[in-house]
């Protein structure tokens, strides 16, 4: 029997509607959950994304891309298949894709989180028959601290560095994490500056109406930017590059869900790790799966086999689904858009 959504060479495909969701090849019609590089690739003829994500997707796909938008919860019909987008809480404009056809409803989560995030709309559960979920942090050791707790830790770290005359460099994905960090910290502590890759998206967030504190672009070839007081937000790829020397003496931290684990913190060879993730933690994944009321669950990128096994033991029809999505990269210093600095 033909499934409503299937993984093909080009990506997750809806044959009935002849469109793809987050394809990894150039296709005529792509529905995009969010603009991270493993979900949104350039070169498709037409993109559809949630309205709040338009500026962000434009930044990544280029000015020539044809981007249609849909407000959250509005629906459209593509070749007789009903498609609607619902907040996924991952980054600005991220969406779960609901696909309905011939009495069947599927939801593709893309990446999502349940935690509060002032820079994007909160995750909303969508009832469906088949739920395709990510599983980046699908192990019970991953449980996120409250955002206020992390904010307090971040502020204390920045303040201590500032008092010691050292810049505070925090490595975070240029899209989403960087803006969330800027919104989490207390801008009274000192100036916030950001790498060019981050600034592009800060501008896209501002153009989309998201309020962020004042952030300055790091000027090229400057010296001791911020005078040892600044919080510097940069993509992970700057680690080990001469760019970091612009700030004089500095403390370097990574913001990632993987920072939960001590061994990972040590391997990354940075002083400090903050547990901040735009993905659901283990309880979050289980809560979202339950809220979908789906009887069938397909588990993609992350700990797919493990999560699917646990769900089967709990009475669901669950199996892993192989895709080319990567989620939050573990231990590697590439940014989500893969560019090296």
């Amino acid at each position, binding site marked *: 029997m033909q499934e409503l959504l299937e993984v093909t060479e080009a990506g997750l495909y809806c044959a009935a509607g002849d469109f793809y969701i987050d394809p990894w090849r150039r296709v005529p019609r792509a529905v995009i959950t969010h603009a991270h590089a493993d979900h949104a690739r350039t070169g498709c003829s037409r993109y559809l994304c949630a309205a709040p994500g338009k500026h962000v997707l434009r930044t990544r796909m280029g000015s020539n891309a044809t981007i249609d938008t849909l407000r959250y919860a509005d629906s459209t019909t593509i070749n007789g298949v009903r498609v609607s987008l619902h907040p996924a809480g991952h980054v600005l404009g991220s969406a779960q894709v609901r696909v309905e056809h011939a009495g069947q409803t599927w939801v593709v989560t893309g990446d999502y989180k349940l935690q509060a995030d002032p820079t994007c709309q909160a995750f909303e559960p969508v009832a469906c028959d088949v739920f395709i979920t990510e599983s980046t942090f699908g*192990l*019970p*050791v*991953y*449980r996120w601290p409250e955002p206020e707790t992390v904010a307090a830790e971040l502020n204390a770290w920045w303040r201590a560095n500032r008092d010691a005359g050292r810049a505070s460099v925090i490595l975070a994905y240029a899209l989403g994490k960087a803006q969330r960090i800027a919104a989490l910290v207390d801008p009274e502590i000192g100036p916030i500056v950001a790498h060019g890759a981050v600034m592009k998206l800060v501008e896209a967030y501002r153009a989309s109406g998201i309020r962020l504190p004042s952030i300055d672009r790091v000027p090229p070839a400057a010296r001791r930017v911020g005078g040892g007081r600044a919080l510097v937000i940069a993509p992970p790829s700057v680690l*080990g*590059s*001469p760019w*970091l*020397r612009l700030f004089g003496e500095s403390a370097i931290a990574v913001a990632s869900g993987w920072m*939960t*684990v*001590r*061994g990972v913190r040590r*391997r990354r*060879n940075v*002083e400090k790790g903050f547990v901040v993730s735009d993905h659901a933690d283990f309880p979050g994944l289980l809560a979202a799966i339950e809220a979908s009321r789906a009887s069938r669950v397909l588990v993609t990128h992350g*700990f797919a086999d*493990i999560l699917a*096994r*646990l769900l089967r*033991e709990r009475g669901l029809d669950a199996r892993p689904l192989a895709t080319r999505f990567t989620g939050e990269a573990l*231990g590697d210093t590439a940014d989500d858009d893969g560019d090296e600095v």
Partner: protein
Amino acid sequence: MKAFTELYWRLDATTKTSEKVAALRDYFAQAAHADAACALAVLCGGRQLRAVSTTDLRQWAAETAGLPVWLVEESYAHVGDLAETLALLLPDPDPEAVEESAAPGLAAMMQDTIHALRGLDSCGKQEIVRATWQRLAPRERIVWHKLLTGGLRVGVSRTLVARALADLAGVEPAVMAHRLMGDAASDADGFAQLLTPATAADDRRPYPFFLASALDQTDVGAVADDLGPVHEWQAEWKWDGMRAQLVRRGADVTAWSRGEELVNEAFPEIVSAAALLPAGTVLDGEILAVGRGDAGGPISLLGFTALSRRSGRRRVPKKLLAEYPCWFVAYDLLEHDGEDIRSLPLVERRQRLDSLVPACFGAALAGSLPDRAVLSRSPLVTGDSWEALARCRAESRTRGVEGLMLKRRTSGYAAGRTRGEWWKWKIEPLEIDAVLLYAQAGHGRRAGLHSDYTLGVWDGDRLVTIAKAYSGLADAEIVELDRIVRATTLERHGPVRICAPTVVLQLAFEGVAASTRHKSGLAVRFPRIVRWRRDKQPAEAGTLADLRRML
């Protein structure tokens, strides 16, 4: 428990010695003596006993967290540390219970939640473990799990602990290291004793080592010009061992490395031999690993690699004692009959040494020493001209030594490096042209620059690694090489970049030995870069066969 947990995480967070010592000092300064004694046993004691099996612990954690055991196993496989895995997946503790449990110190905690488990059945143990989980925050749980399973390792040496405690007690680190020998402080009283002020009786300190300067001249005429008449100099072999002082004072012997580390435990045979010296004796010399021949036959030098199997140990297995016996070869006497004689001229100190230590290491090497003397004196190298000494020096490699030591006969034993009195006249290093294969970013000043290089030579048509080298290039060259490394990276493994072979570096080293660490099966000693051979292509680099010839 809270304070000890803080200590654990401070130690874990840094690789800097000074920060580790500061963390230890802060902990010991505030800890009750009973807790401090406990911490001392945990930090530098031997093996800790396991109070519960990890299988039980996993089972109970799975039940408490409402997870299947296989999922706990999968989590462990991912995290790589059982203590941490369990701490992370257990439900959050009861905040009120955590508040209350802040009070008990390490000693009480160990007594009530670890030692108390011994002799209990599984149910009894489980009850205590579950109750403890309820009152510990995740950070504390990790440390407690490690104590519980006997697996707490924090990367502090006894020397670091001694430094911290010495600072606290206001005594010399050497005095503290001596006080910490054995099981000195197993309870509160014992710990209090550690912190008492120093008395004359516990002075076991070595003297500051006198270091020789390198004599870079290879030309005999130039040496003669620099040093003057040959009869003003005493020549000795420069041994390829570990510089050490033997201090025989009061009732015992202490052996100290040049880093002022107490090495008694690593070399028990030397310590017992030195016990026969009269009290009030301090010898300066070299610890060497020797191969015993047949009874009455000559012994041989085993070299630095063999010695490194013995050094740094706190307990030496019998097998290693037999396989790599270590001897002490004395070349100077610093204290005689309890008197500091460092200001006497070398010839006079040497005469006293000769009468104090009659056995000569040279005789042992020649097979003419009837008794195997673990403690002997270093032979003098005689030559009535610089040319004669140069000929001796040329034999160094076949003799397994590094060259000659030249000491002015009138010299006193100074502290540190005083130029002009003692020279090391080493043989020229061996050299090979090697290809840059991997590079890793450096630390400190070189952070972010790929300045740690792994080099290889040809084995047939493939390149095999032989050495890691850090030093030798100019800063500008390092920056340039960093750009080449980035541009020619084939693969990245964490911080290590595998590069396409394009760069040839001339490598100098002191010797070649068999190794399991490098793919080549060989390792070179003290490798350093001499120069960047821009004139050479990788195909022109050295081969494994070249290196084998230098073995």
